[in-house]
């Protein structure tokens, strides 16, 4: 079906590109006067090309192969040296990079250990400070407790003293009252009457 869509010109182009045409296609090409003419001319050219006797390259004429050889040797050597130089440069570069990496790694390890040590010492200092603070807190507590205890003792003493004082005062007053009572009992009656008359 698709053959019907292809024009005679396209069929000719296909044939010129080396494709085999069917008899129907061939007939279509020949049916068109323009393509027929082109086809015949092209066919004639093909026959001519087929009948052409290929000439051998004259051997007596020197071809510039030595020149090519020189170029090839130079280029080959140049390429080899270039490649070798590149490989050498890259290997040196990689070794240098590796060494740099190694020194950097070593430096990093040293720095890391130093930082760890510093962290340890800082922690120790912090722990010591904490201990000192705890001690201070304990001391203040103890001071407060002793103060409180001392105050309590002083108050107790004061109370005891006051009680003894009071007791003593009461005793003195009782004695004085007793003396007065005795004086009253042994005093003459006129004095008592006089006192009573007043």
């Amino acid at each position: 079906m698709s053959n019907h869509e292809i024009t005679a010109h396209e069929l000719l182009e296909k044939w010129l590109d080396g494709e085999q045409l069917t008899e129907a296609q061939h007939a279509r090409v020949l049916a068109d006067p323009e393509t027929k003419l082109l086809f015949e001319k092209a066919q004639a050219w093909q026959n001519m090309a087929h009948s052409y006797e290929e000439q051998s390259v004259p051997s007596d004429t020197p071809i510039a192969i030595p020149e090519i050889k020189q170029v090839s040797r130079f280029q080959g050597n140049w390429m080899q040296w270039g490649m070798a130089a590149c490989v050498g440069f890259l290997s040196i570069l990689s070794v240098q990079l590796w060494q740099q990496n190694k020194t950097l790694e070593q430096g990093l390890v040293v720095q890391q250990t130093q930082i760890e040590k510093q962290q340890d010492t800082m922690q120790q200092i912090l722990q010591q400070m904490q201990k000192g603070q705890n001690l201070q807190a304990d001391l203040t507590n103890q001071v407060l407790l002793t103060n409180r205890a001392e105050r309590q003792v002083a108050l107790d003493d004061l109370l005891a003293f006051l009680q003894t004082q009071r007791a003593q005062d009461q005793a003195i007053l009782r004695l004085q009252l007793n003396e007065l009572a005795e004086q009253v009992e042994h005093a003459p009656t006129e004095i008592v009457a006089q006192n009573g008359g007043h």
Partner: protein
Amino acid sequence: MFFQSQDKLIKKAQQGDQAAWLKLIKQHEQQVYNHCLRLTGDCHDALDLMQEAFMSVYRSLHNFHGQSQFKTWLFSVTQARCMDFFRKQRQSSPLEKVSEAANTPNCPVQLQSDNQHIHAALQALPFEQRQIVELKFFQHFTFEEIAEQLAISPNTVKSRLYSALGKMKAPLEVIRVES
């Protein structure tokens, strides 16, 4: 080890193997020489062009990565050298060139009458059309391949070929009558 594939030869030549390069030349020199001979009509010019083409190919051999067939690439390089040659030739006197070509003493083309007719028919064409006829009927390249080699569109190739076929009417008829 007597036969080596073309790819291997190319790889070896790219690595600087002179023997491989010479083998490559031997494989293609006749094709290239005859191609140049049909385009120029002169064996000395053909030899010069062939040599220039192979030199160019060798110089740019490292650029060939097998993206097209080696023959296609070789012929595209040869085409470029041929175009340079004809550009230079146009600047010089054409009469001088014709007389030189006619007096070539060791030119084997002169000895074969059939070839002479073909050469005459080809030389009657303008260079651009001669190139297309040569590549199409003698080298059997497709339109696409010719377009790739000459860095032109396939349609330009076709139109040049049809123009050439139109112009070749008289010489063809002569040859057909003779044959």
